[in-house]
Every structure is written in C-alpha cells, then in structure tokens.
C-alpha cells in the first residue's frame, strides 16, 4: 500500500482556481475565477420517474440538500397541479427555515467571523473556526455547535433524515407532526432566536464598532452596482419558501416581478470558453460582459440581494435589524459585497423567528398533509431561496410522469458573473506594480468568499475541502507565483 502526504497544491486534482494576469508594469490586466463542475446530472435524471427527484436532487450537494428537496417538491406540486394543504406548507417552510438558520450561522462562524474576529492581517493558518474559538472562547464554540445540532434535529424530525430528507411528495409531505414534535421544535426555535441575536451582537461589537472594518466593507474595492433578485411574499417581504421573484435595478427600483413559471422569460444563461460554470443574466437587458451598471444584465442573489429586493422582513426582530442595516450602510440598495455577512445574520434571525411562528401555528399538527394528484403531468417548475440564492428546478415529463427534460439553475450560478467581477476588481485595486503579498491575496479571496460559492461537490472526496489555487502570470503568460490559502 502507498503512503503519501496529501498536499492540495501538488497532489490533488479538481480545484477552484483564480488566475491573475499582470501587464508590463506589474498591474492586473485580467483575473478569472474558474470552478470545476459536475457533469451530466440532467441526463442522469432523464427516463426516471419525476417523483424520485426530491430524493435524487439532494445528492447533488452535501451542503444544500434541504433546499434541493424543497425546490424539487414544489416542482412536483406544479407538475401535477396540486396545492398542498396548509399543514403541509407549514411543515415544509418550517424545515426550510431550520435549514436556513443552520447554514447561515455556520457560514458566519466558519467563514465570515475568521476575517473579522481573528483579523484581516492574521496569517491564513489562524483565520479559521479554531482561531475564532481561540478569541471568543470555547463556550461560544459550543453554542454554535449546539444551535446547529438542534436545527438539524428539527430537519430530521420532519424530513426523516437530515442529509437526504425524504418527506416531500407532490401535493404535500409524507408525515404529519405530533404535539410532542411541536414542543421539541418550539424549544429549538426559541434557542435559535436567542442564538442569532447573540451572533448579531457579536457582529456589532467586533465589526461595526471597528472603523477599519466598516471602511473595508464600505470601500470601493468590494462594491458593484448590479441588479438583484429574490423571492418576496405578497407584501414584498423576504420569503425563503414561496412567492414571486422580484428583481430591482441598481437604483433599487422594481424592474420585474414574475411567477416561477415565467422564469425563462427573464433569466438566460451565458457560456464562457474558460470555465464550466454558466453565468445567468437578465434576458431583457442582455449579456454585456462582466460589467456592472444599469445596462448590464448581471444580477446578484443571496442575502445581500434578498434584502435589497424586499420592502422589509416579515418578523419583528429581523425587521428592526433590517432598518438599522440600511441606516448604517447608507440606504437601499446596498451594493457592498461584504455587507452580505451582516445581511446573512439578519436572515438567520428571520429564519429563527419564522420557525417559532410556524411551530406555534394551530394547524401545525393537523394530520391533513397531502393533496393526492389526479392530473396528467406535463411541466413543473419549483423555486425556493437557498442560502446561496434563488434555486430553480424545472422538469418536463411524458404522460406517465417519466422525465424527458430537466433544467436546474443552482443558486451559485446566479452569482458567478458577479463573483468574477468582484475578484477582478479586487485584484486590480489591490495588486499594484507587481507587489503581491499574502494579505492582498486574502483580500482578493474575501471578494468571493462572502458569496459562499458552491465550487461543485467534488468535496466528497478527501481531504474534504476544495483547495483554491491562485496563480499569477507575467505578461508572457508564465506563472510567477502560485499560492494556496
């Protein structure tokens, strides 16, 4: 048997790449973010029964299985033209809220907090969750893990399994909840409300109280004037589970508001020769390249976008934070990418409050959780908000419900164009005259880490993380520096 040491930079294949090209003066001519992509999922699904999709699509991703399960279940509702009864809708949204809370707080403590709590100047080896715990204490670390665990128990309770839930069916869910379940969910939700308020307080104390950090957040390096997209409810409040898709322009004015079924009239995909990932853009504006502004079809999704497209949050505590967020950051829309970290925590608080509301709903334990489909299927489209943005599932079948075509637009794809622009802008502004320090490269990396991109799911393989490699080329195209963080 072979013995090797696993070094991501020399020994592993399949990784994310930032390629930076310098000109004769040592300034950045161009920069690209390249991501590997999995192949052939749509093809793999063809010929299978549509009702398998809620169990199959969570396997695309070990991080967002719950949202794929939701989008897929909703696509089946649409396919069979059935409305789930109210208790089923409550159960589904409850599950999605628990997942949002878990994923958002995890992101903050593992990815956002290391920059700010440990410090922008700290060596990469310390800018991680272990470094955060070193600073804030073991007790807080335990709280993070505990809050996450409780939310995952809620997902397991509802979905049968936490990683690959099995509850979603066309027209509802497979299992009703009991009063005992309610007690446990209320307990988890109360804990989540308390914990996310604590996380917001930490953000206040560590980030907002430090002028240097506020300057970094508000600085031009991390700013793009783009369109924004997200789901809103009938009052234009943020909603993760259902509603209309709203798009606002770079001035914050509503540009479009449409039903999931009409997404192809609004969203198109652009292919670049140098990356597998397809960039989405607004069809009615058109693809004008990796540029921002009103004339470019580039839009953004995820927390920053969702707060920008909405008129508020549907729960009281989150609404208070929403108002303060726009006050502090100078009004709506906020174009500063790094503000995503703050927006994410406000959403986590909303998800927690929403969880509590739904857990207390009188209809939660009503056993009527299924509307049985009777129509012949043709086409179904389901849209939800994943932690990383708007997620589209589109299925077409023959009259037996066997899939003939599948189209998925995953959340990260909607941010690919913006992420490239962010990396390019940060590289241009931070790397001057050939001077390349680790700190500068970290600041380039911060430009896209805020988006929390899904760099494909090849992370199933050891060592369990996708190495990101940054290569810098001289004007002749030769590699002058290679770095991995």
């Amino acid at each position, binding site marked *: 048997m072979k013995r090797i*040491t*696993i070094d991501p930079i020399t020994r592993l294949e399949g990784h994310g790449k930032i390629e930076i090209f310098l000109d004769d003066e040592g300034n950045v001519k161009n920069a690209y973010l390249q991501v590997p992509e999995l192949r052939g999922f749509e093809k793999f699904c063809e010929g299978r029964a549509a009702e398998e999709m809620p169990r199959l699509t969570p396997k695309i991703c070990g991080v967002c299985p719950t949202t794929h399960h939701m989008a897929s279940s909703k696509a089946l509702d649409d396919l069979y033209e059935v409305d789930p009864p109210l208790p089923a809708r409550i159960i589904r949204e409850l599950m999605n809220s628990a997942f949002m809370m878990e994923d958002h707080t995890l992101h903050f403590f593992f990815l956002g907090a290391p920059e700010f709590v440990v410090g922008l100047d700290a060596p990469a080896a310390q800018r991680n969750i272990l470094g955060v715990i070193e600073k804030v204490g073991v007790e807080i*670390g335990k709280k993070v893990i505990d809050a996450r665990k409780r939310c995952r128990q809620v997902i397991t309770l509802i979905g049968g399994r936490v990683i690959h839930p099995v509850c979603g069916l066309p027209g509802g869910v497979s299992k009703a909840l009991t009063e005992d379940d309610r007690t446990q969910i209320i307990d988890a939700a109360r804990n989540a409300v308390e914990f996310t308020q604590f996380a917001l307080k930490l953000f206040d104390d560590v980030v907002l109280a430090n002028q240097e950090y506020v300057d970094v957040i508000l600085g031009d390096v991390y700013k793009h004037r783009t369109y924004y997209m997200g789901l809103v409810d009938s009052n234009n409040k943020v909603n993760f589970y259902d509603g209309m898709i709203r798009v606002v322009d770079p001035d914050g004015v509503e540009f479009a508001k449409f039903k999931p079924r009409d997404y192809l009239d609004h969203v198109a995909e652009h292919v670049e020769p140098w990356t597998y990932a397809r960039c989405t853009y607004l069809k009615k504006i058109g693809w004008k390249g990796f540029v921002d502004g009103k004339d470019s079809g580039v839009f953004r999704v995820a927390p920053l976008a969702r707060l920008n497209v909405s008129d508020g949050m549907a729960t009281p505590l989150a609404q208070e934070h929403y108002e303060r967020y726009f006050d502090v950051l100078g009004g709506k829309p906020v174009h500063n990418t790094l503000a995503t970290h703050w927006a994410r925590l406000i959403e986590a608080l909303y998800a927690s409050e929403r969880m509590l509301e739904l857990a207390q709903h009188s209809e939660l334990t009503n056993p009527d959780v299924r509307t049985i489909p009777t129509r012949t299927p043709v086409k179904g489209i389901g849209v939800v908000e994943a932690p990383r943005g708007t997620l589209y599932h589109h299925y077409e079948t023959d009259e037996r419900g066997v899939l003939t075509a599948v189209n998925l637009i995953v959340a990260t794809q909607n941010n690919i164009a913006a992420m490239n622009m962010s990396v390019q802008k940060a590289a241009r502004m931070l790397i001057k005259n050939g001077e390349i320090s680790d700190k500068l490269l970290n600041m380039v990396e911060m430009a896209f880490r805020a988006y929390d991109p899904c760099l494909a799911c090849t992370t199933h393989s050891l*060592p369990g993380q996708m190495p990101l490699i940054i290569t810098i080329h001289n004007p002749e195209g030769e590699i002058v520096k290679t770095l991995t*963080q």
Partner: protein
Amino acid sequence: MKTLIFGLGNTILTDDGVGIKVVRELKKMMEEHPEIEFKEGSVGGLSILDEIEGFDRLVLVDSIKTADGKPGEVYRLSPEDFNTPAHLINAHGVDFVTAVKLGRKLGYKMPEIIDIYAVQVKDNVTFSKECTSDVQASIPGIADVIMEGL
C-alpha cells in the same frame, strides 16, 4: 473497543461512492462483530462530527483523486498526513481533520485511533450509479486489507 467503520462518498457520482461500497462489502464479511458499527454517508465536514462522536476508534473509507495515482489503489492515511489548512474558502470546506480538531477543542469524545483508507478514483465528476471498472474490481481486495488492519 467501540469501533466505527464509516464509508463516505456520493453513490451517484461514479467512483465517488467507492468508500460506501467498500463498507457495504465489509459489513457482509464481518457480521459477527457486535462491537463494530458500520455507517455510510454522503456528508462532509461538521456532519462527520455528529457521526463519529462517542467512538474509541474510527476507520474512515473515502475516495481520493491524486495527480499520479492509479484507479483502485488504496492509501492508508492518518489525520496527520493531511497538509490542508483549516482556513476555508466556502462552507463545503470544513474538512474532516478540522472537524476532529474542533470536536476535541470543544470537549466532545473523539476517537483516539483514526485510520483513513483512501481509494484512488478515475472519475468523480460524472453522474452514474456504477464505478469505473478498475475501481469496481478493487473493492473486495480493499475490504480484505481493511479487515486485516483491524
């Protein structure tokens, strides 16, 4: 000693699920060992923490893609062999080694003995339920190697 044999991977991603397939094979071979628990999961990072807490010994079976390995080859590794930093670029990235370190730091009972078997894959980016032929053929042999190492 309370032992967990844990297969990791995605069984619809060609060779990515080889770890799970090896563990299924081992489970068939070792039916009369009540002290050994078998688990499989398409999980990463922190979720692993939930699964391995409370065991004395962990045997992890997963796939790997190195630059110069032959498909179906197996490496026996320990957590120290992973030169990967705990610094993350996305939430997928909470790797196994960091998860264990975090677990220890927070006072959870983490396995004292950890062996990692990593099987070299040919394709882990194409959706398919079947492994490639070299990887598929290596499964019984790898199960034998792991059983001998227990």
